């Protein structure tokens, strides 16, 4: 596998909107949730982009839209410049291999009735010709080795593994189709710290060796900071701030980002007991009826009348660090 050029965009989301229809009874529509309300984001080959935000803000929906589990209601998903929604089914199926998804729950994401070997061979059964049949066993061994499992694990069932091992299997399975982009939806959130560290290290190694790009979804700011090159902060279906890791963490410009960073617990918190922490009041509003204007204004301590009326756009000011706020903190 060739090492790709870093700057080349591999995935582009262009004003992506994804809604869920709530059904009520017999085929009646019960309204729509705009879970993703216009998201634009770029992932370049070989890089890791973090997507952080609170529960329900639409992170998983972004992931599911990218891999084609749900259809966007508007906007485009471009993979290597090609619009996924306009592709013919056949090509679509082929492209599928290039984007893989790893889920949060290592217990639920593996078919309990398949052995590890069967799980890993499944993609080759689906995409015939990807790996010739006679090389399957060999390939399985090398995949297991790749993710730090032993060859004899191939004949076991998922329930015979620990959570960390299962997540390794899930990763091996994603790698089986040699993807260019892996979307990790909270892939380490369910793991204990020590195991989490193993998986994070593994992901980094794989990126170094294979050049895959990651869209890394997490609510854990510490983890995102550790693994990502760039970070996007999401609030209620919208991205409020994107930028390189350093600029976002050092100079958060959006009040929500500031609050998030200040609320995130860290090992060093014991040092200054009476830190000036920003504790936001209230909860994330329901995406069924988002607030007018700026979506964050209901919890923002510096909201003004303008925020109520006008929705701030995600504007790039001087640096490569766009913020969607009328009154961003100077960076």
């Amino acid at each position, binding site marked *: 596998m060739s090492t790709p050029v870093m700057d080349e965009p591999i995935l582009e989301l262009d004003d992506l909107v994804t809604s869920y229809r709530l059904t009520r009874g017999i085929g009646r529509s019960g309204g729509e949730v705009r879970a993703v309300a216009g998201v634009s984001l770029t992932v370049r080959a070989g890089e890791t982009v973090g997507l952080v935000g*609170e529960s329900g803000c639409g992170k998983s929906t972004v992931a599911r839209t990218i891999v084609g589990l749900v259809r966007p209601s508007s906007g485009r998903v471009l993979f290597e410049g090609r619009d996924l929604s306009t592709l013919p089914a056949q090509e679509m199926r082929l492209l599928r291999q290039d984007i893989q998804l790893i889920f949060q729950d290592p217990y639920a994401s593996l078919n309990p009735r398949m052995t590890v070997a069967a799980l890993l061979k499944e993609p080759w059964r689906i995409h015939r010709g990807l790996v010739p049949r006679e090389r399957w066993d060999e390939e399985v061994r090398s995949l297991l080795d790749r993710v730090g499992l032993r060859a004899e694990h191939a004949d076991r069932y998922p329930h015979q593994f620990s959570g960390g091992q299962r997540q390794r299997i899930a990763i091996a399975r994603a790698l089986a189709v040699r993807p260019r982009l892996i979307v990790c939806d909270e892939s380490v959130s369910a793991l204990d*710290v020590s*195991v989490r560290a193993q998986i994070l290290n593994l992901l980094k190694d794989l990126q170094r060796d294979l050049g895959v790009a990651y869209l890394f979804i997490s609510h854990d700011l*510490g983890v995102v900071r550790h*693994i990502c090159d760039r970070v996007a902060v999401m609030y209620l279906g919208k991205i409020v701030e994107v930028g390189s890791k350093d600029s976002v963490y050092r100079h958060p410009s959006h009040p929500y980002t500031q609050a998030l960073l200040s609320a995130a617990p860290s*090992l060093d*918190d*014991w040092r200054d007991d009476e830190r000036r922490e920003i*504790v936001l009041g209230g*909860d994330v509003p329901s995406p069924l009826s988002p607030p007018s204007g700026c979506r964050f204004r209901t919890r923002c301590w510096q909201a003004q009348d303008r925020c109520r009326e006008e929705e701030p756009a995600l504007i790039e000011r001087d640096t490569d660090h766009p913020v969607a706020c009328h009154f961003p903190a100077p960076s």
Partner: protein
Amino acid sequence: MTGVLLQVDDLAVEFDTPKGPLRAVRGVSFQVGEGETLAIVGESGSGKSVTAHTLMGLVPLRARIVSGRVTIEGRDVTGLSDKEWRELRGERIAMIFQDPLSALNPSLTVGYQIAEMFRRHRRLGRKESRRLAVGLMEQVGIPDAERRLDDHPHRFSGGMRQRVMIAIALALDPRLLIADEPTTALDVTVQAQILRLLRQRQRADRLGMIIISHDLGVVARAADRVAVMYAGRIVETGTVAEVYERPAHPYTLGLMRAVPTPRDGGAPLEAIDGQPPDLLAPPDGCAFHPRCPFARDKCREVDPEQHELGPRRASACHFAEEVMTGVHTGHG
């Protein structure tokens, strides 16, 4: 430190399983003083919850206290009858659980569930209990308490539900509050709200508090003292500053290094290799030795006792001093 609220000595709890006895808690000792917050950290399955439940007299099904003594406000509670426990729970010691949705009864109103404390323990009337419940809800920061009293839990957000749980726990002014992963199910911003609320209440009432978490960050923010659990034992205790600055057990050290920090600059994390031990058949010697970089022959043979490293500072490692200095030399 003023009076000791809770004293736990050599507590051991076993589960009867089809595969034999599972030693979930293996000789745990600690104390909590008035106005003090003790954090218990440790990975999943290390026995934190079982310990906490045992303190409440809620020994889980098919579990059995093998040994140990629990003293609450100077009173040995190990052999209390059901009725005596009932008088203690809620009145003297109270508990908050991880998932505030499942921990509340879905079919009773929030108001009822709070007021129940006054009605059952204090035998107060319906009106009076409601009035008190409204007061409590306001105290824990639930806006519009009067109106929300008659709502069912599912109408509340996660943070609000946890506030309700706190209100219930604090209803009868207990002296000791146990919080088992009180914020794990919550978002960071809400977690910050709840941690602040707990801290405020604890300071105001000079509560003794045990906060259980697997998140070292949460512990750092919320606690005065830490007890680190591994495989059913407390492997290290001390103040937050002591433990975080100079871990005295290789497991604590491993935990610290496995957590990404702003300072690591994206360098590979130092993961602890291997798996937690099988509690049905814990390894001989120190339970941590198969994963321990410091392990020697002694560790494989002798299960280390807790030994004092200072006032209320202890470690259950044969080579605690070495570990403590190792940290210093390793991470300057």
